[in-house]
């Protein structure tokens, strides 16, 4: 589903945020990207939704080389992705319903289809009773659930999550992880950047550790607390 071929990204000359990344994520996989701050986790995700362009190398998403995508094709790529951020990035002047329906409106879906889909998705994240609330009337956990609903409402091929639980307390973190697990079980490929080792142990999946812009380790899911190195 996602492939990186010798991908490097430099924000400044001779200062690589990512160096020579080679990576393959299969359809339906759940992958953690971990590592210390500045290791390149967010940059790697940004390359996938074209907020940044690689300095070198090629990136394939669902078999398409997105490296050369022009600005007109980027929106089409993003319609197949779900993106969840640490700071939610919700439209604060729009209701929960409007926030979740927005990606479907962008795609030009029919009103009836939108309302049905939005209600179903909000029900899945347990927020169907908060339809008409504004984000700032919700708790942090609820806001992140709205963000997850917004990402999942389009049935994305890939869900990209950048420290989605970074601002949440442990209990709410578990709720969010359950939502990701559910989406993954329904076939969505997930790449999640986190530095929460506890979470990785609690929900064991493939773990890619980045250090100074390079892949340090790429481990298979933990089994009984141990990781099998790839």
């Amino acid at each position, binding site marked *: 589903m996602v492939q990186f071929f010798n991908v490097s990204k430099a924000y400044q000359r001779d200062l690589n945020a990512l160096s020579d990344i080679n990576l393959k994520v299969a359809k339906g996989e759940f992958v953690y990207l971990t590592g210390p701050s500045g290791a390149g986790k967010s940059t790697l995700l940004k390359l996938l939704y*074209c907020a940044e362009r690689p300095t070198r190398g090629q990136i394939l998403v669902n078999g398409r080389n997105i490296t050369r995508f022009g600005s007109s094709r980027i*929106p089409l790529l993003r319609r197949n992705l779900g*993106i969840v951020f640490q700071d939610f*990035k919700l439209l604060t002047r729009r209701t929960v319903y409007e926030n979740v329906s*927005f*990606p479907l409106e*962008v795609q030009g879906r029919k009103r009836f289809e939108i309302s049905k889909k939005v209600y179903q998705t909000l029900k899945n994240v347990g927020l169907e009773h908060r339809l008409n609330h504004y984000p700032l009337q919700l708790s942090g956990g609820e806001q992140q659930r709205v963000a997850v609903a*917004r990402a999942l409402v*389009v049935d994305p091929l890939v869900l990209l999550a950048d420290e989605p639980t970074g601002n949440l307390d442990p209990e709410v973190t578990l709720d969010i992880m359950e939502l990701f697990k559910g989406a993954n079980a329904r076939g969505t490929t997930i790449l999640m950047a986190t530095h929460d080792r506890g979470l990785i142990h609690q929900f064991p999946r493939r773990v890619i550790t980045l250090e100074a812009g390079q892949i340090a380790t790429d481990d298979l899911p933990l089994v009984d607390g141990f990781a099998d190195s790839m």
Partner: protein
Amino acid sequence: MRQSPVLSLAAVGTVAVALALLAFFAIAVLNVQQLTASWGENLAIVAYLDEVPEEAKLKRWVKEIEAYPEVGSVTFVSRAQAFERFRKRLGDDADLVEGLGVEVLPASLEISLAEDHLSEVTVTGLVERLRRDSRFDDLQYGQGWLEKLEAFLLLLRISGSALGGFLVFAALVIVSNTIKLTLYARQDELEAMAMVGGTSLFIKLPYLIEGTLQGVIGGLTALGLSFLVFELILQESLGSLLLITGIDTIHFLPSTWQLFLIACGGLIGLLGSLFALRKFVRYGSA
């Protein structure tokens, strides 16, 4: 507009002030043009007659000159009429001509030009034709004055266009920057729209419509403002000033100009939004 009323108001206000200035200037230019045009209307060539012919002959002369395409009308002014005019013009000093006979002033033909022939070239051409005619003793017309009038009108038009262009450009820059401030306040929203796959047009369209609307409202406000100032101030002060020069009334902008002003507001709003949005809706950096 509902979401950031202060900034929207600032944008509308900027357009309104800039266009109101433009409207005031346009009113001034229009009225000055009208004034100078009326001066032009009064422009006449006076052909002094050496000998006054008999009436039938005089009528033939008048008809002959009236047949020229550049001539509007020809009026015969007899010695007596000329003397009477002169006496009136002297006003309180009329007694200076007491005892003088009407024969001191020559009879003349006053030749007014047709409305669409009020130019230096036409007048000179006509004067040359009349000069060749031995029937007329002397010819007088506003030689240097006409040249100056034409130069003044040209200068007025050029400076009007330059100032108007400058004002519109200034309004465009200010509106663009004001809209940028609105967009800064909504940067998160724009970013979120781009993240879920909104196309550039989908994201920009509401802002472009909003900018155009703000511009149109600004244009309407400018029109209202300039009309108010025209009614309350200009007609009073400028009106009395113009009375001295012989214009009894000053005019507001004609309806086509009013529509142009509103359309100009809309265009400024649209272009201002377009320039401002260029820097905000971007999908990624290389």
